[in-house]
């Protein structure tokens, strides 16, 4: 066992891990953040996506020890004080959630796009979401949701 410390959803956490433990397992089984889903566990489906130092990655193939000293954001970290992130609201409004299994990962990839680009075009969105499998929605609702979120974020900005 080895102790690692990293920033998780804005707070420093310290946890004991085995060198072979994946970030996915540590998040779910040691830190009890089960919003990050365990799907294929071989980097194919995107259900386990988290944001590592501003970039979405598949936590199922990241050794937990690798994030020592780094910053990780999971789906639990994007709502604040019980209020949903505009992206989460947009996913509800667009009907982009059905069974919900892929949703946390997709929302985090979408968040990573919007953090880098205020108004992404369709190709950018398709490209950035291409590492997610969704068996319910048919993907088009993700695109609608992101468009709604772009609007919400722009409105928030003008209000400020």
């Amino acid at each position, binding site marked *: 066992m080895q102790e690692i410390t990293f920033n998780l959803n804005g707070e420093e956490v310290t946890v004991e891990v085995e060198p*072979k433990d994946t970030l996915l397992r540590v998040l779910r089984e040691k830190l009890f953040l089960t919003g990050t889903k365990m799907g294929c566990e071989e*980097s194919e489906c995107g259900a386990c996506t988290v944001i590592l130092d501003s970039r*979405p990655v*598949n936590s*199922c193939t990241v050794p937990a020890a690798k994030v*020592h000293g780094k910053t990780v954001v999971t789906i639990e970290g994007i709502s604040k004080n019980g209020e949903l992130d505009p992206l989460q609201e947009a996913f509800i409004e667009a009907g982009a959630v059905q069974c919900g299994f892929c949703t946390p990962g997709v929302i985090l990839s979408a968040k990573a796009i919007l953090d880098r680009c205020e108004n992404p075009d369709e190709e950018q969105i398709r490209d950035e979401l291409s590492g997610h499998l969704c068996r319910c929605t048919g993907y088009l609702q993700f695109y609608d949701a992101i468009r709604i979120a772009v609007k919400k974020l722009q409105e928030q900005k003008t209000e400020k």
Partner: protein
Amino acid sequence: MRIEKYLYPTSAEEAVRMLEDYQGEAMIMAGGTDLVLWIKEGKREPSALVDIDGIKELHSVLIQENEIILGAGVTHAEVAENRELKKRVKCLTDGCRSVGSPQIRNIATVGGNIVSAQPAADSTVNFVALGAECEIVSAEGRRRVPVEQLFLGVGKSALNPGRELMTKIYIPLPACPYATSFQRLAPRNSLALPIVNVAAYLAEKDGRIAEARIVASPVAVTPFRLRQAEQYLTGKQVSEKGLAAAAGQLAHDEANPRDSLLRGSGEYRKVLVQDLVTKAVEEILGKLLRGGAEHAGNNV
């Protein structure tokens, strides 16, 4: 076997010392997108993991007039998004953009892709086509090796990740005009290994093709140089008609991909090699003729 320790060196030399401490039983951990899976499947059983993230020189991108020096720990996303690299080595940025998915490209490293030595890798064919060399550090010191010589077989690299670390990749840029192309066909655009990919590089001097490197994969156990097509093109006038089709035909005759349940029949993939080589050479010649070369002096 149990992995005893996860280590964080801050220099290449320290990393190699750590590897030596474990007498070849430890392994370098770069992005982990291959290695973590192999450990889970029991295909690799290292006794310790040596993480490269803290080694600064592995993460730098240096663009000079006559060469590009890429840190081996640079990610595929970093290469794919770099506009200055796209101007100079378009095949490489296109190839890196084809690897896996965004989540994989965000962490998988170009050095790792070379060392993994998978025959279908979309970035490595480009390093071979570009005539790249890499720097390797071991307990004996640093040495430079052509990337092409690192591939020994499927998953077999001449670099021993239990003793050695790749630090840099050197891509030479000629003083004369040149252009590159990366072509690929896969069942779908994301998260699919290529049925065939082709990387090509042609350089021009005084209206003639002065240098040609054309590489296809996975048509053999290692990236495959289409030497007959290369030889045919070398010395030809850039403006000569029918060059691309003739190079494609030679590539067709030269490549000998096997029948694969995953990728299609050998005969089908031979035709694909022909088509992709023709397309790549056509694209490059078009660029050279229209003055759209990726000349190192361009846009600096």
